[in-house]
């Protein structure tokens, strides 16, 4: 038991590295908030564009969404981080992580919001148009709010899953929770920083996981 405590909850190691993991938590939180905002924003925008049903544009959106939903994000991160500098585009690790996860979340958000738009009853479109609203107005003021409401649970689940992937930043050296914990672990030759990191992630994400459970109970999912 003593050995267990000494390995995973070593008070001295915890005290020494807690500030660095707290710094990491700030990076994780900032990245997560930015990724959720821009990912869902871009995804919603693409879903709206697709509603105009202009063939070449819809086709490109579908290809984009399919590819980024099928590729492991870590592959995209490595390509961007190690490949781009050789063609003259040098981005910091944090920026690469932000851009890639935003694009991945946007791909999923596009598909989810699009499912919401297509399952909004046709009558809503017709009623909106008959009151004199243009197509764009009907989309933005009548259809989209209903569509988004319908897909809040799957959108929340996906946003949580993607923001958790900020931990992948470890691989390219982003100083987030896991990155800092991993450095601390190798300096201290002790597992306590990793325990602290795990606790930090649970504190950050558990409220959202429980919240998503509540949302799911409250909203009926379309198609389920």
């Amino acid at each position, binding site marked *: 038991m003593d050995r267990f405590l000494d390995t995973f909850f070593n008070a001295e190691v915890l005290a020494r590295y807690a500030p660095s993991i707290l710094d990491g938590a700030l990076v994780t939180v900032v990245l997560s908030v930015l990724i959720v905002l821009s990912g869902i924003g871009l995804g919603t925008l693409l879903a709206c564009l697709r509603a105009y049903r202009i063939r070449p544009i819809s086709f490109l959106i579908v290809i984009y969404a399919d590819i980024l939903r099928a*590729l*492991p994000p*870590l592959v995209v991160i490595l*390509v961007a981080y190690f490949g781009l500098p050789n063609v003259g585009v040098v981005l910091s690790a944090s920026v690469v992580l932000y851009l890639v996860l935003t694009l991945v979340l946007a791909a999923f958000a596009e*598909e989810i919001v699009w499912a919401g738009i297509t399952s909004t009853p046709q009558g809503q479109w017709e009623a909106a148009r008959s009151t004199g609203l243009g197509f764009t107005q009907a989309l933005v003021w009548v259809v989209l709010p209903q569509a988004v409401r319908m897909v809040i649970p799957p959108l929340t689940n996906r946003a949580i899953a993607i923001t958790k992937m900020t931990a992948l930043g470890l691989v390219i050296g982003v100083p987030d929770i896991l990155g800092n914990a991993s450095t601390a672990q190798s300096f201290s030759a002790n*597992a306590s920083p990793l325990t602290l990191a795990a606790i930090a992630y649970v504190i950050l*994400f558990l409220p959202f996981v429980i919240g998503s459970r509540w949302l799911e109970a409250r909203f009926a999912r379309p198609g*389920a």
Partner: protein
Amino acid sequence: MDAILQQFFNWGVMAQALPLLLKGLGMTLLICAVVIPLGALGGLLAALASTAQARALRWSAIAFVDLFRALPPLVLLIFIYAGLPFAGLRLSPFAAVTIAFFLNNSAYFAEIFRAGLLSVPKGQAEAALSTGLTPAQTLIWVRLPQATRNVLPDLLSNVVEIVKLTSLASVVSLGEMLHAADLVRSVTYNASPLILAAGLYLLLLWPLVRLIGRFERRIAG
């Protein structure tokens, strides 16, 4: 333009990398073959526990599921692979990957099976029991088939997520496809092996992603 082709679509480098990547793909598929059935089974058990009558059982199952849905899989993997050795428990990369992904996937499968089980009307189980089937028979022959069918797109979508997840095994140097690609990348200073890996992942997963889309539309429509 030439620089881009040279850096990302260098056929020479790709040809050189292909045998190693295919070997890696074998490992990727092996991880999937172990982790998907194990995760589905664990998830099913957790789902049954989380829909059970006994309150303690129900809440501990929900706590398990929520904990592992909150923890990023890479954190779990690093903890098991790099943390446990300090306590004298040294695991091979394959064992660490299997345990980490099993815990992570069970939680996701559990949520899906739970939604499926809850979507089957109570009358189905009551009718089955009234014909003399035992509770176990009712579960296997009446509730599970309907539950599985109702959440088939979600189950498939989780399988896609698991195949993508296997790429994390590269972090603990398990020689799956991404690890192989990154190895060649670091030797050749060229990103083409990663693009080749991306192409192979697409080949593997794009049909599944399309299939899921079709299922979802059919059920919604």
